[in-house]
Every structure is written in structure tokens, then in C-alpha cells.
């Protein structure tokens, strides 16, 4: 059998803002790199000074690869870039105080390696492996209730990187093993089904998709069928108004075999 990763690509990538009146305020950032077989998604936290910029820097840097053994240095470079791009001299008193509170964002990076799919996940942005039959893998969360927790996010504050959580995160990246506690690394075998897809979603979509009730299958089917920005916008609006999905920036990346070739 040929290497399946060579046939996989982004089937869709898009985002719907939480407030349609302010689309420029969308704090989710994403990037797909089919050539590098790398897909990155970051969700900037709402109550942050400039999580939009922070998420953008994380995604930009991660799309060149995340060096697992030098992650602390990688993160320092991202913070330095964030500080460089923040014009501190022009801040008002409230912006100065908000800047000091830091910016926070999740980071999800999916790499299609030769032997397996590698997922690095920090925070509550989730990757799932699924087909029409159901969800077979999900990381770092597998239950909708887990989204009630306060997630550990990447911060622009250096002081946040001396915590026990962060030390465990570094260790698990260096070891190359998934850590239950820090929940940052998973590896999945490629599924045998050509119809399988990796779904990357930010928290509101993830919480909605992982709900276990009589509509679970319909939700999955709806997500798997998205191929245009308009379809995603319709799905999100309907889920918000009819199915209790939390109003938040909602982003989706679908990775799988190209629709035209998956059944040949």
C-alpha cells in the first residue's frame, strides 16, 4: 500500500466570527500547508489584550514546524515577535494594563508523517479522526464536558512558563510521548478507510461535535460535508440558533483524501 499521507490534503479550511458585525475581530487563526503536510489552528482567548496577533504569530511560526525538543526556545521567539509587533510607546493607560495581563491562545498542529498522524495540542482546540461511521479518535478532549474546564493556553507572559503544567508539557514533547496531564501530543495510525478525515476545530465547534445524544451522528455528517465557507457559515448559524452551540469564533479544517480520488 502506498504512503497514505501523500494522498491527504486540506479538503476545507475556514472560520466564522462570533459577531458578524465585527468579522475583523475574529481571533482564530489557521494555516494549511499541503506541501509540508502540516495544518495549524490557534484560538486566541477573548479576554486578552491582543490574542489575535498572538494566535497569528503562533500559527505563522508553527507552519514552519514545531521543534519538539526546543519548544521553550521556539516559544520565546514567538513572544519576542509579539513584543516587537506591539507598539508599547503608544498605549493608553488601559492598554498598558491590559498588555501586562498578557495574551493567550491555544495551538493545534497536525502533521501527516509517513507512518502516522502526529497531533500537538495545547489548550482546547481539538483534532478528531472520523468518518461517516463515527469518531474513532479525539485529542486532547474526547467529551463535550471537558470544554467546561479552564484550558492551559500559551501565554505571552514569560512568568506563565515556569508552571508545573508547562514543565510537563516540555517533558512530554521532548520524550515524544503523550502526557495525559499536559495533553499535548498524540500519534494516530492512518485509518484503513479512505473516507476517514481529520477534523480540526476550535472549542465551540468541538464542544458541539462531541456531545453524545441522538443528534451526534447528524452533527458529524454535517461537519464532514462542509466544503465551502458559505456551508460552514450556515452550519454554525444553524447550530447556534437551533442546537445551543456557544457563540464564539468557530474554525474548521478538514484533512483527508481528495473527494475526487478517495474512491478510485
Amino acid at each position, binding site marked *: 500500500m502506498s504512503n497514505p499521507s501523500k494522498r491527504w490534503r486540506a479538503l476545507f479550511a475556514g472560520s466564522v466570527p*462570533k*459577531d458578524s*458585525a*465585527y468579522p475583523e475581530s475574529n481571533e482564530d487563526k489557521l494555516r494549511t500547508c499541503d506541501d509540508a503536510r502540516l495544518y495549524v489552528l490557534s484560538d486566541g482567548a*477573548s*479576554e*486578552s*489584550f*491582543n490574542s*489575535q*496577533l498572538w494566535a497569528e504569530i503562533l500559527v505563522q511560526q508553527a507552519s514552519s514546524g514545531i521543534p519538539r525538543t526546543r519548544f521553550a526556545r521556539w516559544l520565546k521567539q514567538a513572544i519576542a515577535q509579539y513584543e516587537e509587533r*506591539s507598539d508599547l510607546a503608544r498605549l*493608553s*493607560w*488601559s*492598554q*498598558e*494594563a*491590559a498588555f*501586562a*495581563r498578557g495574551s493567550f491562545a491555544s495551538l493545534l498542529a497536525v502533521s501527516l508523517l509517513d507512518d502516522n498522524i502526529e497531533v500537538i495540542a495545547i489548550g482546547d482546540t481539538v483534532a478528531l479522526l472520523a468518518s461517516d461511521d463515527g469518531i474513532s479518535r479525539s485529542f486532547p478532549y474526547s467529551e463535550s464536558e471537558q470544554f467546561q474546564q479552564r484550558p492551559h493556553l500559551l501565554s505571552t*507572559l*514569560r*512568568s506563565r*512558563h*515556569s508552571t508545573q503544567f508547562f514543565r510537563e508539557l516540555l517533558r512530554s514533547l521532548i520524550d515524544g510521548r503523550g502526557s495525559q496531564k499536559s495533553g499535548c501530543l498524540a500519534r494516530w495510525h492512518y485509518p484503513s478507510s479512505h473516507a476517514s478525515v481529520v477534523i480540526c476545530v476550535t472549542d465551540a465547534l468541538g464542544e458541539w461535535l462531541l456531545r453524545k445524544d441522538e443528534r451526534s451522528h447528524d452533527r458529524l455528517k454535517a461537519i464532514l460535508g462542509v466544503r465551502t465557507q458559505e456551508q460552514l457559515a450556515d452550519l454554525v448559524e444553524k447550530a447556534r440558533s437551533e442546537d445551543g452551540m*456557544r*457563540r464564539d469564533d468557530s474554525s474548521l479544517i478538514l484533512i483527508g483524501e481528495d473527494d475526487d480520488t478517495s474512491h478510485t
Partner: protein
Amino acid sequence: MPYTAEISRSQPTAFLFVIDQSGSMDERMPSGKTKADFVADVLNKTIYQLIIRSTKADGVRNYFDLGVLAYGGNGVSSGFGGSLATGVMHPLSAVEQNPLRIDTRTKRVDDGAGGLVDQTVKFPVWFDPKSSGGTPMCEALRQVAQLLVDWCNSHDRSYPPTVIHVTDGQSTDGDPEQIATQLQQISTNDGAALLFNLHIDASEGTGLIFPNNESGLPDTHSKLLFRCSSQFPPHLVKPAQDKGYSVSSESRFFGYRVGIEGIVDFFDIGTRASELR
């Protein structure tokens, strides 16, 4: 379900602080500050926090309208000074731009290496302490009701306004119960206006905070303020429990003879809105 409207720039909510500035507010607390000084300090910090939480790189987002109404020997008037004194309620960005002055303070912060370091921070002041005369509580609540009617009329889809009323004494212009009851019937489509009453005391004790019923309250005045206070909105139950308070949805958002720590918690929990957009 009430109290579930999301708070956004196109759908802001409002906080109105109603502050007793009667003569008895000059009594000193264990810290050496007067009650008026301490309440002014907590109020300024609360406004500061509301602004900081809503400040992004592109400016302050108007998630809230803020108002301060003060009452005492000089009657009832806006508690804001300077250019904000012309009105009671203002959008958050206007409050941010118009403090009376910006003081500097020192606070200890994490140095990132396991230690603490002193850092100078700017501390804006909007509200100065005052204390004189009587306690025209009824007139203050009447003016609050008018402000809420106007606000709710123009924000019918918003999370309803929250009134945080701080007093250390009894009304000197009549019985406030009827007007307080009427005030809690003013509503948006998301629910009735919330009236949180905080009776403060100069002692070090925690007093009685968030009681479930009148039966454990010590006197007629505390029972009156209990009846004048709103029940806990469901989403504030957990933040109160997280701070160690025994609270259920039956509890009233009310504190009696509350000291320093309780005053800070009361403001903190009372201004937790649901998630900001």
C-alpha cells in the same frame, strides 16, 4: 431562560453603583481608612478591572455602560467627577478616557523566576470619598429606577442592568422597600434588573453574606434590605461558591454588616458578567 443574553458591543449590559455618602461613612475601619475611603477604593478598582477586561489592542470595547450615583448630605447626584459628572451612565470607553486623575501605586508581581518584584502601576481614580449629612436612600432608588427604565427601553435584548447599592445605615427619607420592589420589575427581554444590597460595617467580621432567608437575620433593618435584594442569578452561584460562600439559587445577593474582605468579594462576584464577546 433569563440572564443568558450574551454581552457584546452591539448588546452591552450596564452596571450602576449606588453609593451612600452620609456622615456615618467617615467611621474608621481596622485598616485605618474610613468606610468612605475603602468603598471608593474598591469601586475605583472595580471600574479599573471592568475596563481592563474589555481593553484590546484596538481600544476599549463598549461591553458595558457604567454609572455611579451618590447620595448623602448634598442630595443625590452623579458620583463621577470632571466631564463625566454631567450624567450618571456612560459607555465604558468614555469612562476610560475621563478619570479624575491617574495616581501611581506599587504592587508586587511574579518575576517569572519564582520570586516577587515591586512594580509601579497606574491607578486611575473616578470616584472620591465623601461623607456628610443624612441618607436619602428612597430618593436615590427613585432616580435609579428612572435611569433603569430609560436604559432598558433602549437595550431590550441586553442582559439586564445590575445595581450594586452600598450603604452603612438606614434610610432617612422613608421606607425604600416599595421602590426597591418596583425597581426589580424593570426588565429587558433577558430578565429583570438586579439589585444587590451591601450593608457595610467597620468591624473586622465577615457579617452575614448571601443569606437564603430572613429568619437568621438580626433585626428589622437587615430583613428589610434582604427583601429589597434580588435572588442570585444562576450563573453567579458558582463564582460565589468558588470563593467559599455557601450559596444556592435561593440566596439573596445581599450582605449585612460586611467587613473588608466581604466588600471586595461582593463587588467582584456582583460584576461577573456572563462571557464577553
